[in-house]
């Protein structure tokens, strides 16, 4: 009771420094947790974001670029794949089914991807979940100038069923390069929390034959999404395309390919982590500084407490507990900051990649980091506590004039 009262009153007496120090700890703790969670979730979500697909077949080039282009609708296509190559892989006995995609156009910066309706009817958006078209809409019909719009694009551009639009040439928006072809929106996809939400889907032939596209490559596709019959089938096709062939790239297994992305960003991860640790150390230093600097103002109170019979250990414990209490208050704020930072980061990542991070998901770091920081705060309190411990009683009982 005594220690609790001493800590509570001291926090109140030094309210401004308590609040400022707790806020700096809140920012530090929030940053540390956010960096940790974003990094972990981004890796897990990206590598697990391959939906129902086991592999991607594309032009000869980097596997990572191929996967980012075909599944995440990022990066440029490495080149085209002849339609005959699509047919060959689609009819291979090792393949359960294959869907072609073609890219090359956009609508206000959002990619337009040509594909076939079996992407929506046979494939899964994510494990155990198929794509759904929202109420009042339907899938496009192959061969027609119709489009199904991803939920994110629809909300951003305000596209509705029954409206028409004219695509722009290229992957980047250029108002001078609008195609003549007009597409009718037949449906809006329900949010799938996958990169498909950031895409406008049209029939494969529509993109291949868009006015202005080269007629010589009109039957080519950009990549083929592949569902294998068994894991062993991947090894056979890997051997066939990557080792024996030299025209195409077979990106498989997708998880391993995507982890290359994070391996390449490893240095950035480390820098971010280091910055977060430094911020935490600075915040712990601020606990030490704020309490240490207030020690001269507390000298008399400490002397009075000692004159009343408080032991040195009581005074020491009260200061350490106060530092821990400031850190604990900071950690309450840190959780708020964490969810704030994560919400912003998740919004940015979603708008840029379509990958959705779970803001409210549980992670052990949400307990480990606050506990660690409270401990660090308590440790920071040891230095001023030692000063209080050694504070002479008799000479400090005299009021300051």
């Amino acid at each position, binding site marked *: 009771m*005594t220690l609790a*009262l001493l800590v509570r*009153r001291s926090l109140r007496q030094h309210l401004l420094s308590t609040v400022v120090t707790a806020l700096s700890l809140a920012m530090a703790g929030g940053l540390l947790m956010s960096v940790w969670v974003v990094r972990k979730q981004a890796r897990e979500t990206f590598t697990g974001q391959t939906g129902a697909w086991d592999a991607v077949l594309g032009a000869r080039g980097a596997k990572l670029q191929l996967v980012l282009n075909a599944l995440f609708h990022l990066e440029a296509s490495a080149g085209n794949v002849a339609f005959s190559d699509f047919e060959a892989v689609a009819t291979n006995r090792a393949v359960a089914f294959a869907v072609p995609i073609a890219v090359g156009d956009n609508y206000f910066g959002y990619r337009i991807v040509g594909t076939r309706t079996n992407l929506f009817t046979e494939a899964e958006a994510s494990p155990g979940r198929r794509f759904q078209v929202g109420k009042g809409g339907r899938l496009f019909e192959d061969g027609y100038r119709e489009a199904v719009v991803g939920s994110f694009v629809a909300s951003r551009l305000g596209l509705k069923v029954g409206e028409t639009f004219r695509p722009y040439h290229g992957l980047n928006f250029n108002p001078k390069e609008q195609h003549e072809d007009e597409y009718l929106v037949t449906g809006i996809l329900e949010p799938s929390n996958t990169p498909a939400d950031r895409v406008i889907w049209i029939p494969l032939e529509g993109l291949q034959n868009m006015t202005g596209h080269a007629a010589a490559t009109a039957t080519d596709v950009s990549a083929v999404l592949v569902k294998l019959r068994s894991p062993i089938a991947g090894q056979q096709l890997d051997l066939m395309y990557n080792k024996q062939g030299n025209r195409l790239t077979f990106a498989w297994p997708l998880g391993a390919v995507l982890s290359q992305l994070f391996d390449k960003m490893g240095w950035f991860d480390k820098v971010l982590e280091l910055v977060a640790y430094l911020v935490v150390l600075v915040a712990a230093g601020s606990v030490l500084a704020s309490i240490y600097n207030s020690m001269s103002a507390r000298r008399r*109170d400490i002397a*009075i407490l000692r*004159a*009343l*019979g408080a*032991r*040195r250990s009581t005074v020491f414990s009260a200061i350490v507990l106060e530092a821990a209490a400031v850190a604990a208050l900071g950690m309450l704020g840190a959780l708020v900051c964490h969810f704030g930072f994560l919400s912003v980061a998740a919004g940015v990542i979603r708008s840029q990649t379509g990958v959705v991070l779970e803001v409210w998901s549980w992670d052990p770091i949400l307990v480990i980091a606050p506990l660690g920081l409270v401990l660090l705060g308590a440790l920071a309190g040891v230095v001023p506590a030692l000063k209080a411990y050694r504070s002479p009683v008799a000479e400090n009982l005299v009021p300051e004039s």
Partner: protein
Amino acid sequence: MPVLEIEELKKAFVPPGGTAPVPVVDIGSFSLEAGEQVALSGSSGSGKTTLLHLVAGILAADSGRVCVAGSDMTSLGEAGRDRLRAESIGYIFQTFNLLQGYSCLENVLLGMSFGPGADMAHARSLLGRVGLSDRLDYLPRQLSTGQQQRVAVARAVANRPRLVLADEPTGNLDPSNARQALELIRGICTENNAALLLVSHDPAVLASFKRVVSLTELNRAARKEVAL
């Protein structure tokens, strides 16, 4: 058995800029029985506050013996002196030394918590006894000087100490408040059968005590100072 017994108590300090310790307290023998009330008179610099600090165990003696309620203060370590002070000694300071961030009630409760333990009912009753039952949650700065001294008195006697030390308790009060504070201190000590050692240089205060001891006479170090 006396509540306070002092034998050959010595304390010296090295003055600022000096090298050799200068004796401040040098007392041959002094004792105080339970319920006895003694006033110590002495001029400024006669070692009054140092003596009270030695008796309270706030300062450690260089040599000699101070027994409080049967325990030899000088043979105890710092933690032991803290415990003995909390349980057996009440200390009233000239400047009250109330904790400014704590209410009246909390000041009294804190004083109790280092001794036998906080007793809310007793703390309230004591503050009522000193006429502050309607000021329990007031901070010291919200009280008059006289009221602050009464809180200090309540805090000092809250643990029912065997010995109450009062260092110029009326020094900062006007005559009316000084008289009331003195009556309060002496009255509560009488009720609790506590020994009172009160330091003052106020003739009116000293005149109200049956036993007045001159510190200049008692303290050999002070005598030398006067002789010089």
